[in-house]
């Protein structure tokens, strides 16, 4: 995994080696042998696309987004690899636009806020 010296990059993120889609969550295995699970609801709630990100700026909108995500039928996503730094997920319903950098997934795996408290970057849109 290539790393950049930006301060928001997570230090020492191991390379993801396995992405196992289970019924309602994904089991992630990293090259150092560590395992994590991330629910699809968490994944979808943290979508980094331009439409979903701003919704997490405020608590109320964020909770709303959460409810919308939870109301979607449970399904396993199609996974595609983006460049060599991210994954994309395709769902039959709801938003499939977000490109999830490995750092974002690593944050989710470690139960950290992947937005770092500022999901929406001013000037974009």
């Amino acid at each position, binding site marked *: 995994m290539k790393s950049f010296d930006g301060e928001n990059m997570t230090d020492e993120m191991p390379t993801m080696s*396995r*992405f196992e889609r289970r019924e309602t969550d994904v089991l992630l295995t990293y090259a150092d042998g560590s395992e994590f699970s991330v629910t699809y609801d968490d994944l979808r709630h943290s979508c*980094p696309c331009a439409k979903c990100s701003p919704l997490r700026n405020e608590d109320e909108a964020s909770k709303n987004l959460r409810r919308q995500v939870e109301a979607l039928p449970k399904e396993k996503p199609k996974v595609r690899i983006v460049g060599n730094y991210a994954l*994309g997920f395709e769902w039959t319903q709801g938003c499939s636009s977000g490109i999830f950098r490995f750092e974002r997934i690593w944050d989710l795996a470690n139960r950290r806020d992947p937005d770092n408290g500022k999901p929406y970057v001013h000037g974009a849109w």
Partner: protein
Amino acid sequence: MSDSPVTTHDPNADDTPAEASPQEQKKMEQAYAQMKRKMSMEEIGKKIKHKVMVLSGKGGVGKSTVSTGLALSLAQQGLSVGILDIDITGPNVPKMMGLDGQRLHVESGRIHPAKGHLGVKVISMAFLLDSEDTPVVWRGPIKLGAIQQFIGDVEWGNLDYLIIDFPPGTSDEPLTVAQSLPDIDGMVIVTTPQEVALLDSRKSITFSESLKVPVLGVVENMSGYTISGKAPPGSDIEIAAPAGKTLKATANDAGEFSVTLDIFKKGGGKLTAEEFGVPFLGALPFDPGFVRGGDDGVHRIVSEPEGPSAVAFAAIVAALQEQIVDDPGAGLEII
């Protein structure tokens, strides 16, 4: 244009009239042409190993300079490369590639690209213009149709890389291309270090997420101006730079020195890249040779294949190639 090239047909309607009305016939012909185009786009997608879009938030930041530079730098590696210039607002790629005044070459219904410097194949919206000064005013659907045609009907042959130069901003064109051409590797975003350009390039990055095309990286153009000169070996040089700064250098054993003036604020491209967590591919110096090259049709990389700008391009291309994976996901098991 409709997404589905096939018109619906009722299988029970065996008693179709022997002759279709002229309108129906025309519709069928259009559907057939559309289907053929779609198939040929898929075919083209397979023959071109890597497709890279070049975008910028603003015009005039050097998108075409970077597109042609990337193409030539890749061609310098011995790869077969094409450029598709669909910047309708100012298609200046032909000029930079020494192909000024070329017209579209069509043979048995297929469009054949022109061959520019280092054998790079070029198709440009400029090939459709009567004269350089004709402003191209296209209505939306015609414009997008022309782009699809440019993608589907061009005989590229086998290419290692196709570089696509877009109009500035977040318009319809990237969407059309992203939807027509399968397996785009991603986009390169060109910016200058100024705040305004940066803000616009941030827009492009967000835009890329909505297109589902990954950002391969950010290139900062016109990053600094390098002054070189000669002085007695080992002597110290001081140059008065803008904002009261002094730049220092020491002449080497051959009596050569160089210093770099930052014309705009430095490092903005890198910061933008970091802010979004996308790769920073590198910076290109301000080089008046680019402007001359644009005017006399000899690209900087061609006129000075080992000069500082060519070296900078080679580094950017190396960083780009690192982002482009021949076998994506090698090592990641998805089950």
